[in-house]
């Protein structure tokens, strides 16, 4: 279509209701909606344009589970054959015994708390999310495991990609400088354990609060470098 035009620049800050593009050439992606000929913003965030798709990376908001996401969850309840986990989302997730354990379990003889108990923290993969937002997890993934010790941090879920950085650059920087093991869940829960946990915590919280600013990587390495000596 000839009269399609983009009204914003890449990475521009937009507010809900702002018109991003006009005409049918562009298509609304996450964080945007179409109203007649126009594509408008749903949430506050930074615009991203990929070919014909206009989307927004939000600066706030809750985590909505998607199949394939790796999440960190806290076991909050247990039934005969399943666990219920709090995954920092409006929706609780369930982990079925069959998705959690490979071996045969005789339920007459075993209490499933020997695998995971209430209060345990688990890194698991989202297997499936039904339309009514029933979330199922699986441990059938090479990264999935129980997390023992360490500490838990919560950040805004939409800022997780920023914390990981391009091809893991940011998280590798923090891991390397603080000699910590760090696992970041797509749900905004971060688990860390190691020598210098408090420094890593400070770096992660700095990424969270300054995620929309420029030159963040330099400031993070400065923070880590200074304290490391």
């Amino acid at each position: 279509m000839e009269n399609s035009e983009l009204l914003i620049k890449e990475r521009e800050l937009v507010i809900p209701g702002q018109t991003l593009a006009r005409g049918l050439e562009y298509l609304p992606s996450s964080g945007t909606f179409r109203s007649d000929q126009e594509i408008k913003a749903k949430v506050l965030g930074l615009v991203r344009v990929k070919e014909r798709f206009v989307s927004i990376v939000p600066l706030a908001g809750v985590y909505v589970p998607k199949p394939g996401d790796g999440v960190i969850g806290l076991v909050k309840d247990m039934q005969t054959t399943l666990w219920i986990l709090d995954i920092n989302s409006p929706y609780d997730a369930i982990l079925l015994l069959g998705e959690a354990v490979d071996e045969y379990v005789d339920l007459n003889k075993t209490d499933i708390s020997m695998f995971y108990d209430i209060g345990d923290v688990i890194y698991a993969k989202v297997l499936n999310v039904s339309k009514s937002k029933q979330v199922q997890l699986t441990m059938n993934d090479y990264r999935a495991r129980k997390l023992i010790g360490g500490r838990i941090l919560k950040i805004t879920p939409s800022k997780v990609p920023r914390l990981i950085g391009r091809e893991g650059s940011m998280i590798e920087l923090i891991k390397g400088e603080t000699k910590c093991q760090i696992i970041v869940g797509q749900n905004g829960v971060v688990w860390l354990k190691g020598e210098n946990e408090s420094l890593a915590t400070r770096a992660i919280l700095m990424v969270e609060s300054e995620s929309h600013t420029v030159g963040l990587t330099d400031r993070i390495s400065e923070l880590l470098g200074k304290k490391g000596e």
Partner: protein
Amino acid sequence: MTKVGKPERMIIGGKRLDGRELEHFRAISIEIGNLKKAAGSAVFKFGDTYAQTAVFGPQEMHPKHLQNPEKSFIKCRYAMAPFSSTERIRPGRTRRATEISKVIKEAFSDVIFLEDYPKTSIDIYIEILQADASTRCAGLNAASLALVDAGIPMKNLVSSCSVGKVDGKIVLDVGGLEDNYGEVDMAVATVADEDKFILLQMDGIVTKQELSKMLDLARKGCSQIFEMQKNALKEKYKIGEGDEQDE
């Protein structure tokens, strides 16, 4: 603060009691994200009217029987602090607070994408810390910013202002004594600067001509409020110059 009686005239030489022109707002100030524990928060002040809002959610809906499997549920609570006025306001539910909570909730259910978060609730708390007329307008403006701060998907912001009739003249942003002794007080909310009204409440009697004049003024006022809300949001999340390409 002592109670002031009715002044003889409230508009003298085209100026109002506080020295404003007929179509001017009181001093407006906006602060976004001032509460750390809430998902989103904002303060909106019209002169001496202070509204503090906080937004929680979307979160799991309780009681569960009110969960809607297709969309989110808005819980809205408007309340005036006991110390907000010249006389103590009895805390707790009153007829007035329940009504205002309800109309604000209905205004927001038109702009929030409720179907994005089925089975959840979005909680909006509006506390009036100091009341000097137009409290529901200040509350709506603040709540709209708090919702944006919480990252809740919306069609547009909500902007609100009051118009009234004082001494036979149509005025914008009714304040203080004008509310107590003026003839008409009307609260209006629009979807940003669009020509869509989502809240309109009026006390008093007006003619048809006066009403359409008042609506025109309210429209103008709301678009001014919208500009201020927009600027406050952009100010809060200013981005430095240059272009960074981290993914």
